[in-house]
């Protein structure tokens, strides 16, 4: 039984991390007032660029560099469209979704279904991995998971406890006020959108460089949308996003195990569980019956034009 709990827990952590990079990237982007609906497309571009690099060079370091650069370039284009040209963010996001899905399939066509020799392997953290249950769940993971353990507290600290974090929150609430204070709204929005897209691309790389060691078209399988829904669920807080991702990952994995332990129930019911949990969680965290403010940045999705003030 304990082995089962460890296995479900460890798998839930891996699943959670693969969507958390994207969710945290999107939190930063939305906190800056820019909504990016193209997460799935950018994840796929990250996944294929990382896979192609590792396929040709056998270097995970170069692959991660390629992933980050791919995300950053896409972020730059997205920022140009939404910040400089002030195009509709929803339309641009959908365009990126389709563009990324199509282009990744095109450039990865020749390496579809081929396995690479190199991928991120699990590393046991000395001493910590010996802690009963928790050690095996949290400290026998790969490098991308360990990086996330640092990114979560760091991003919470940055957003809520630092001056740049305060500016970031203001950027999504009232960019005009920041502009008046002499802070360059456009440059900051560019920076956060580029950072967000780089993080989203890493999420894609988790799938081709850590979760598996092959590429196939559309293999993110809707994870981008789960990451997107996590942002609202988490109330734009990376800590809650981590909890939500673990919840979603845990329920997904639990469903498969329940097929063995409760075989009488139709398996479609188990497949439905994570989505039902997401709907319930979204209602609880964002429903209008709540007295608390939903935490959605007030200027999210709104064009900012200096001349228009």
């Amino acid at each position, binding site marked *: 039984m304990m082995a089962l709990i460890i296995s479900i827990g460890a798998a839930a952590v891996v699943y959670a991390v693969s969507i958390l990079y994207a969710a945290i990237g999107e939190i930063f982007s939305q906190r800056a007032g820019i909504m990016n609906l193209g997460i799935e497309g950018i994840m796929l571009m990250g996944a294929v660029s990382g896979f192609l690099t590792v396929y040709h060079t056998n270097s995970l370091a170069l692959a991660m560099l390629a992933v980050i650069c791919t995300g950053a370039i896409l972020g730059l284009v997205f920022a140009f469209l939404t910040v400089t040209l002030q195009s509709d963010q929803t339309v641009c996001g959908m365009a990126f979704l389709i563009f990324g899905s199509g282009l990744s399939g095109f450039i990865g066509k020749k390496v579809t*279904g081929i396995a690479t020799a190199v991928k991120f392997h699990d590393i046991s953290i000395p001493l910590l991995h010996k802690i009963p249950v928790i050690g095996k769940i949290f400290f026998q993971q790969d490098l991308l998971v360990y990086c996330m353990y640092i990114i979560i507290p760091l991003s919470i600290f940055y957003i809520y406890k630092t001056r740049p974090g305060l500016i970031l929150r203001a950027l999504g609430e009232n960019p005009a006020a920041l502009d008046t204070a002499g802070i360059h709204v456009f440059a900051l929005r560019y920076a956060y959108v580029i950072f967000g897209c780089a993080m989203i691309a890493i999420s894609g790389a988790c799938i081709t460089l850590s979760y598996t*060691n092959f590429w196939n*078209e559309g293999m993110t399988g809707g*994870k981008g949308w789960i990451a997107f829904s996590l942002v609202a669920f988490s109330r734009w807080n990376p800590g809650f996003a981590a909890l939500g991702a673990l919840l979603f990952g845990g329920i997904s994995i639990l469903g*498969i195990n329940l097929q063995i332990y409760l*075989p009488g129930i*139709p398996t479609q019911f188990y*497949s439905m569980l994570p989505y039902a949990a997401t709907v319930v969680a979204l209602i609880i965290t964002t429903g209008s019956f709540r007295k608390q403010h939903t935490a959605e940045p007030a200027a999210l999705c709104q064009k900012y034009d200096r001349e228009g003030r």
Partner: protein
Amino acid sequence: MKKKLISILLVVAMAAMLLTGCSGNSGNQTKDTAKAKLDYSNIKIGEITSLVVNDGGWCQATHQSLLAAMKELGIPEENLKVIENVAEDQVSVTNAYNALASEGVNLIVGASAGYATFLSELAGKNSNIIVAQQGDQVPNLIGYQIRNYEGMFLAGYACALMSPTDTLGFAASMSEASVRGAINGYALGAKYANPNAKVKLVWANSWYDVDIETQSAKTLINQGIKYMGMEASSPAIPQTCQENGAYCIGYNVDMKDLAPKAVLFSYMWNFAPIYKDIITSVVEGKADTSKYYYEGGECANISAFNEAIVPKDVQDKVLQVKADLASGKIKVFGGELKDNKGNILVPAGQTMSDDKINTQQFLVENVIGSF
């Protein structure tokens, strides 16, 4: 104003010329195609696939089979026009069909059962293009299906011979008749090797989901299962087996290179003999759109054994069973056969009809699971 008027007139004139040119070409092409006698050098074949043709799974198996049939008949590879990533909806299928029709194809092969309804409608309106479609028998289309349970019987048999325990695993995708056929074939093969063999079943409820397939394999491995069968499209299950010291039978295509320490051998769809027959009938002008192929034997093929992990005596026994299946000595769905609810499906001494096999709605006695 004058300049504007001239520009507009020029644009209109150019568009008219372009359209005239297009229609002229198309007319000539149609005439030429009609005049030319169809033979193996000039037959044009269209293929519509739901993913890319090198997806490492179903589409690759279909594409490779088609190329093999063409090669055998001496048809140049360039005579095959492929449209990939065609969604299973009316607009996408109609669009692909029209594009292939404009290329002058004589035969269209639909590589996904989801195309059947739309292709049936289109084929009914145009008898010049023969359409062949995998899946159930549908009006206006040459239908085909493979007795995958035969290959899966060998898979279950090999796993049961090698497994140190009586319990095997099976990771399945979506619940439909051919998938249930694969599970049942696997379980019956296992029972043939070991009368006490049981098969624990997990469903992904998806045709392609790397996460869920990985978890399916891990779930079975956590149950202490070392040998499993699969009916899933990605290499996630073999790779998960390899990472956890378990073994499996590959699916769709030969998966040995993807997980050389885990794949004993692979079940491979081989549509080539069916395609060869269909192409020949089209070339000879004898294509019958009411024909339905339901083939086993070499169509339900297995790859070469992974010599490093499959002992020679197991290889010999599997090949013997393969021969017995081909000769009819072993009837996979022969009686007495019970489902896992205790109902008798086939009384002793009888064999299940092809209709019932092809549309099966049961899991056999030694499967632990439901659908």
